[in-house]
């Protein structure tokens, strides 16, 4: 697979620009505070310049002034619709740095919660994306289903968002006694709910007309742009961190990696939809295998890792999230770098928008499923 390395130019290609159209930062379809300036030639987009940073809170700088355990609270606030997936990747990076391994039960708990969080995140995407392209109904169904996951999280962690539940070396506390029962019930309901949405939306004629063949990106371009997650798999590249570099207990679970065919908006949607089914499958398997035991590795509460570096990455609902930690031997990290999948996926926007209709700009941006908390950090 050869990466095409044409230089990305900020200026429109044709030289004929009728108008520049500003979208955002306050625009319902940008799902946050994201602004892009479209160069328009007739009905066609010939250039796009994204402007980000409206939500920049300096998380990486703040992390340098917090102890390792406290940094987890900042990771909750990066990708605020899949909080637990973010917590996990920081906890794993710190564990690698400190040479700690979470007990088996904690790893299963983390896997189950992360997979349910993935379903919740994808359901949010499906609902709001349908809204973006003009379907008002599915969001009602997907939010009803997402609520079940939120309620479960509230029951387990005490919070609906910003859980602060994972710890370096395990989880905060063991799950409640009725955890298995409740997860089974949630999974059963979610599967029905996802199927219902699937029937309602996937092959709807209007929906197909809005998304099929729109925002196409080839596999070579997607790789060169550094897209990951459903955006990459939508173009037919089966790269999933859970398969390629198994972490936690993913090597013991059976699951498929759904891939798209053409790399258009519909394919990216379809990949996420299928991932919901796969995640529910994984949740059930993990629940069956979950052993009893400790949920926190024994050790000191205030950790001073040795000098060195650690990198951990994981499959977030949006793609390959990575955390690069540098330690100078004190109780605070010397440098924390997040490799944010939403931010990296934005590179593909220009290629997808090239030559698209103005009316499709919203559909294309929506299909990337960016979360601005993570883009801007």
């Amino acid at each position, binding site marked *: *697979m*050869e*990466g*095409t*390395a*044409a*230089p*990305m*130019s*900020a200026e429109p290609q044709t030289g004929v620009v009728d108008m520049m159209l500003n979208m955002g930062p306050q625009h319902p379809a940008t799902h946050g505070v994201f602004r892009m300036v479209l160069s328009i030639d007739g009905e066609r987009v010939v250039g796009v310049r994204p402007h*980000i*940073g409206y939500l*920049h809170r*300096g998380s*990486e*700088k703040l992390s340098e002034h917090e102890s390792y355990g406290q940094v987890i609270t900042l990771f909750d606030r990066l990708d605020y619709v899949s909080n637990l997936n973010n917590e996990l990747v920081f906890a794993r990076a710190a564990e690698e740095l400190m040479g700690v391994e979470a007990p088996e039960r904690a790893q299963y708990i983390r896997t189950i919660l992360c997979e349910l969080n993935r379903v919740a995140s994808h359901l949010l995407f499906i609902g709001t994306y349908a809204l973006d392209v003009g379907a008002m109904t599915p969001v009602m169904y997907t939010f009803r289903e997402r609520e079940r996951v939120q309620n479960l999280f509230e029951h387990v962690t005490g919070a609906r968002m910003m859980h602060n539940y994972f710890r370096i070396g395990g989880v905060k506390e063991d799950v409640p006694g009725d955890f298995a029962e409740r997860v089974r019930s949630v999974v059963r309901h979610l599967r029905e709910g996802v199927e219902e949405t699937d029937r309602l939306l996937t092959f709807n004629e209007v929906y197909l007309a809005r998304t099929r063949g729109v925002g196409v990106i080839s596999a070579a*371009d997607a*790789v*060169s*742009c*550094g*897209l990951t997650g459903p955006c990459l798999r939508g173009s037919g*590249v089966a*790269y999933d961190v859970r398969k*390629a*570099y198994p972490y936690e207990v993913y090597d013991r679970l059976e699951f498929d990696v759904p891939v798209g065919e053409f790399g258009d908006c519909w394919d990216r949607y379809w990949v996420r939809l299928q991932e919901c089914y796969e995640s529910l499958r994984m949740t059930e398997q993990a629940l069956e295998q979950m052993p009893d035991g400790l949920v926190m590795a024994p050790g000191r509460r205030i950790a001073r890792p040795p000098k060195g*570096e650690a*990198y951990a*990455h994981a499959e977030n609902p949006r793609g*390959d999230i*990575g955390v*690069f930690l*540098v330690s100078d031997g004190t109780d605070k990290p*010397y*440098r924390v*770098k997040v*490799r944010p999948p939403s*931010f*990296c996926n*934005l*590179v593909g926007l220009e290629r997808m928008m090239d030559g698209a209709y103005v009316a499709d700009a919203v559909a294309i941006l929506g299909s990337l499923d960016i979360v601005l908390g993570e883009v*801007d*950090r």
Partner: protein
Amino acid sequence: MSVAATGHELAEPLRAAFGEAALSADDGAVYVAPGSIAEVCAYLRDDPALDFAMLNSLTAVDYVECFEVVYRLTSLRRNATCVVKTRVYGRDDPALPTVSGVWRGAVLQEREVYDLMGVRFEGHPDLRRILTWEGFEGHPLRRDYLEPPLPYTWPHGG
């Protein structure tokens, strides 16, 4: 299974191809001269035995005496990763060549490093601040960055 290439494994082909440009290697990474980073990256991408088609992450660490720029590469076909590092010295205007011609994905990440660390990438098509605003002074992720004293006013109003 996946393979994480150690710096030593990577240093051999790089020394054969570039000689002195591959400075040193340890278990985690290979260190190359900043001036030849673009050629080294193009080689790592194009050589069929290496085939690092994707730039996973690009970042910099401020070690006060130098900036260490870290490139983390992924080969999807071989399911392998590697780390390439380069050190740029000087705090006034550290600069090294861009790799955005090798991987388009570097465009935004290099802008971020420029914005927050103040490392300039020569030949970058659109090197502007990205997370902070135009007119922002300083580079916040540097170790010697000091927050401007309060009360601080935003460029347009309050």
